[in-house]
């Protein structure tokens, strides 16, 4: 895994759009360079949406006692896959929450569900006081 970029953003909701755009752009550049046979725009949207969800959670569930909080997003490439990571200083959380029951018209609980639907591999590791949520998508099978 080689890092393409790492960006540190202030943990503010308005920056979720910037984070999502960074993700889309990185994924599109990666897919184009690999001559991805699928839909480059859809691959870009996959990362745009997943990072939008993850970044928003990092902001929404931040520890209010810590001032000047930042969220870091990173992108790492392999020959056949791209991994986005979102790192925050929040409390640990369960990446397998119950799935939303759509017939009950749920207003929330879609974030991690969407991430799981979009990505091939999702994991969260605890590094010191930080959560590192990693989201990986293959462009081709090895």
């Amino acid at each position, binding site marked *: 895994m080689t890092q393409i970029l790492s960006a540190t953003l202030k943990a503010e*909701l*308005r920056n*979720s*759009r910037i984070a*999502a755009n960074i993700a889309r752009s990185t994924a599109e550049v990666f897919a184009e360079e690999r001559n991805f046979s699928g839909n480059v725009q*859809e691959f870009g*949207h996959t990362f*745009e*949406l997943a990072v*939008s*969800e993850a970044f*928003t959670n990092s*902001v*929404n569930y931040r520890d209010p006692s810590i001032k000047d909080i930042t969220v870091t997003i990173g992108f790492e490439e392999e020959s056949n896959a791209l991994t986005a990571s979102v790192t925050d200083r929040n409390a640990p959380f369960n990446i397998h929450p119950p799935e*939303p029951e*759509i*017939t009950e*018209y*749920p*207003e*929330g609980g*879609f*974030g991690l*569900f*969407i991430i799981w*639907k*979009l990505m091939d591999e999702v994991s969260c590791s605890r590094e010191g006081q930080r959560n590192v949520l990693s989201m990986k998508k293959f462009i081709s099978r090895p």
Partner: protein
Amino acid sequence: MNIAESTINGIKVLSLEGVLNAASSPKFKAYLETADHSGPMIINLEQVEFIDSSGLGLLVRLARQKKSANEALKLAKMNDRVKRVFEITQAHSLFDIYDDIQAAAGN
């Protein structure tokens, strides 16, 4: 995001524009809570370039309100990226979805 109101065949049409995410959806939420939104409604999503779960959640909430009031709520003109979010989450099953406004208005 921006919100514009119009009427077609006596049905209120809300045309949303821009990005519907956690940063912008409070504006949409406030709008839904202040004005009187009874009666059938069409949401025109043609100018919505991106939606995430925050925007989706608000639309699901509106769908629930409309359902319990027994009023129609129709979504029209979503682009592929927006449609994908509804399909991934199965939320498309909660809405009447149309390709164009005329069809949504029953023309």
